[in-house]
């Protein structure tokens, strides 16, 4: 039992932390958001050069051989900077699907591009009617000739606008919510029949709605076995939860610390408002929510690191529940304690609040994961 980082992990954390402090101040971040593609290509290149994009992949696949712990370390720091570069969709989600289920040929074809920063990916797993149920799919993939034909609609695909390749979940058999019969396909962004509608998200990311109309892919586009795709999506999503949850922990740290600093300096009634006991205790609660979330973050990462078991799933759901509750409380409290200033686009507070709001929704909200936790 050991909660401390290895030397390599400490180095990784320091390196990301330094980047956030030096190159990702709030103004710089806002400039990245304004970039045409919604993030900084230069930063992406830096990420690749620093080896960050290869962290989760095995050394055999050209990566760094990192585990859930490394993912957690990076994402917590990204959360502090409110990083908009698409590490989650490209590396954790699309890359994760390949890492978990991809064939040697698929890995060879795509991972190098992800790792060297030349390839953007996305995971198209959600559908409007399905809410958070990963198996609730109306998109179909029918065998035809020596490949598949896909038809359907995929909702709110993060990094859709920039993605070169999508990992799409579709039903090859079974009824709409069967756990069997789900398959995953690699679909190039320029595939015929694939239509895209792009938009910004409230937390300043980019996403797309995808319509698939007779999109043809070859047989080797299938990730893993036909009909056995759900466990892969589940694992990818659980790793995604660890990632965005860690990001949320970083966000909360910024929020409670910013709030403490603000309350030290903002004066009303002849004294810093931080002298008011009610505000002090509210900040104590913010601090404790952050600590609680961070503790469950460690647990989730270590469990995932031990293997993808029911125990790990349970730890991930517990973490997501906590992050949902804590994020809401910390975000709302930070806005409240900043008064009017907390409501402005100008201060960074509100942007962290918005990110925490979307993190609560992503991959299933509190209710969803409470139920999953209770059932596991």
């Amino acid at each position: 039992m050991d909660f401390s980082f290895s030397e390599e992990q400490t180095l990784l954390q320091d390196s990301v932390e330094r980047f956030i402090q030096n190159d990702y101040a709030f103004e710089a971040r806002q400039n990245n958001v304004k970039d045409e593609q919604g993030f900084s290509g230069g930063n992406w290149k830096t990420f690749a050069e620093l080896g960050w994009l290869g962290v989760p992949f095995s050394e055999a696949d050209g990566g760094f051989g990192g585990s859930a712990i490394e993912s957690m370390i990076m994402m917590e720091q990204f959360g502090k900077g409110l990083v908009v570069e698409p590490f989650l969709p490209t590396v954790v989600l699309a890359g994760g699907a390949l890492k978990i289920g991809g064939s040697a040929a698929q890995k060879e074809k795509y991972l190098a591009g992800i790792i060297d920063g030349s390839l953007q990916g996305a995971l198209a797993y959600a559908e409007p009617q399905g809410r958070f149920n990963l198996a609730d799919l109306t998109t179909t993939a029918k065998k035809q000739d020596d490949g598949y034909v896909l038809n359907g609609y995929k909702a709110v695909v993060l990094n859709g606008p920039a993605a070169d390749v999508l990992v799409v979940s579709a039903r090859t058999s079974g009824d709409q919510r069967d756990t069997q019969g789900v398959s995953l396909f690699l679909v190039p962004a320029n595939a015929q029949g694939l239509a895209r509608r792009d938009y910004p998200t409230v937390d300043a990311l980019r996403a797309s709605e995808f319509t698939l109309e007779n999109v043809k892919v070859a047989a080797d586009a299938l990730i893993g076995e036909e009909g056995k795709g759900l466990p892969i999506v589940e694992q990818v999503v659980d790793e995604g939860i660890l990632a965005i949850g860690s990001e949320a922990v970083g966000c909360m740290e910024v929020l409670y610390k910013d709030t403490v600093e603000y309350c030290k300096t903002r004066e009303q009634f002849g004294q810093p408002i931080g002298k008011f006991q009610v505000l002090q205790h509210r900040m104590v609660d913010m601090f404790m929510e952050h600590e609680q979330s961070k503790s469950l973050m460690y647990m989730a990462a270590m469990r995932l690191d031990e293997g993808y078991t029911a125990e790990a799933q349970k730890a991930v759901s517990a973490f997501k529940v906590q992050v949902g509750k804590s994020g809401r409380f910390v975000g709302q409290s930070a806005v409240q304690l900043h008064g009017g200033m907390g409501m402005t686009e100008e201060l960074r507070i509100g942007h962290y609040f918005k990110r925490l709001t979307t993190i609560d929704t992503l991959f299933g909200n509190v209710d969803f994961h409470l139920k999953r936790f209770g059932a596991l």
Partner: protein
Amino acid sequence: MKLALSDEDQAFLDEVLAFIVRHWPPSTRRPLEAAAVYPEQRQPEEAGWFDALVARGWSVPHWPVAQGGTGWTPVQRYLWDRETAYAETPRMDAYGANLLGPLLCAWGTAEQRDRFLPPIREARVRWCQGFSEPGAGSDLASLSTRALRRDDKFVVNGSKTWVSGAHSADWMFCLVRTHAETARPQDGISFLLVDMKSVGVEVAPIRTLGDQHTVNRVTLTDVEVPVANLLGQENEGWACAKALLDLERVGVARVAQSQVQLGRLKAFAGTFTQDGGTLQESPDFRRKVAEVEIDLAGLEALELRVLSQSGSGELAGPQGSVLRLRGAEIGQRINELFVEALGYYGLPYPEALLIDNEGAIGHDYALPALQGMLSSRSWTVSGGTSEIHKNSIAKALFEPGQV
């Protein structure tokens, strides 16, 4: 003790309903979502409504009868407020009709009343309120905008913040410091009415969460304000401000608005699916809706109790703060549930798409729901933070006979 309306009140209600149906017929009612997304499209119907109000003499029910008020009983006013909220009629300019109007009736000179009241009553003018300053929020009395008297004018310098609607207002009422060396900071404050077209008035937008623009910073540089625009006595503006802040509490619970929103939430949740059923059918979501519905029922009952206790419809002691606090929290909660109902469609933020008219992403109401949730966070800040209101209630609790 009974809930049923008296015959008189029932007759009044029928009259109100008939008026609303005639001048704000269901066919012209735009759902809130469309209104929020395309505010400019709301104008034509609104004008008709205001004309009808003015013609009927119902534009400022709560003013003294001599100034154009209706003389309604508290119950009648409650019914009017409720039914217009249910029907989502356009609302009179709150700063002019609800705040400054009654204040002018009580504190204004005859000249001031004759000059300023008719345009408000006739919905011809928009006001804004310049109270808060960058350094004076909860602690309003610490404000530093200076007004120096020069002959028959005040020369005003300073800056006001969080001024709602300043970008479309014709006039601003504001607090300024006319005397610097007083024992208590509130003793040197005066209440001025400022023409927004005056030289030296600059309005800069403040973008708030979700990139919305409702509040502004107003900078005043050597703005000349005639002494005739001083409300109340010089250096005694604090009393005016206090009277006005009390007025602000009427209707603060926003019960009817929350009821409308709650009904919409239920319908809305019925359009989202989850595991083959609708979200509205899911026990978890239904429980949360039931909880806020009960909170709202309690708030409505509390408002009715208060209304019934106060013959005048005025709020006493800490009741206004209680209604405001609870009303804000309940409204925030309903807004949160909208976003929760949206699921993934709470993420899209399609400002760009509104322009090209491609239609909303996911759900027509997605954007207003999200913006509604974000802007609702200000409800526990503006008009006094929740903490400040709790301080006032605590003060009353500790003073015997107050509660």
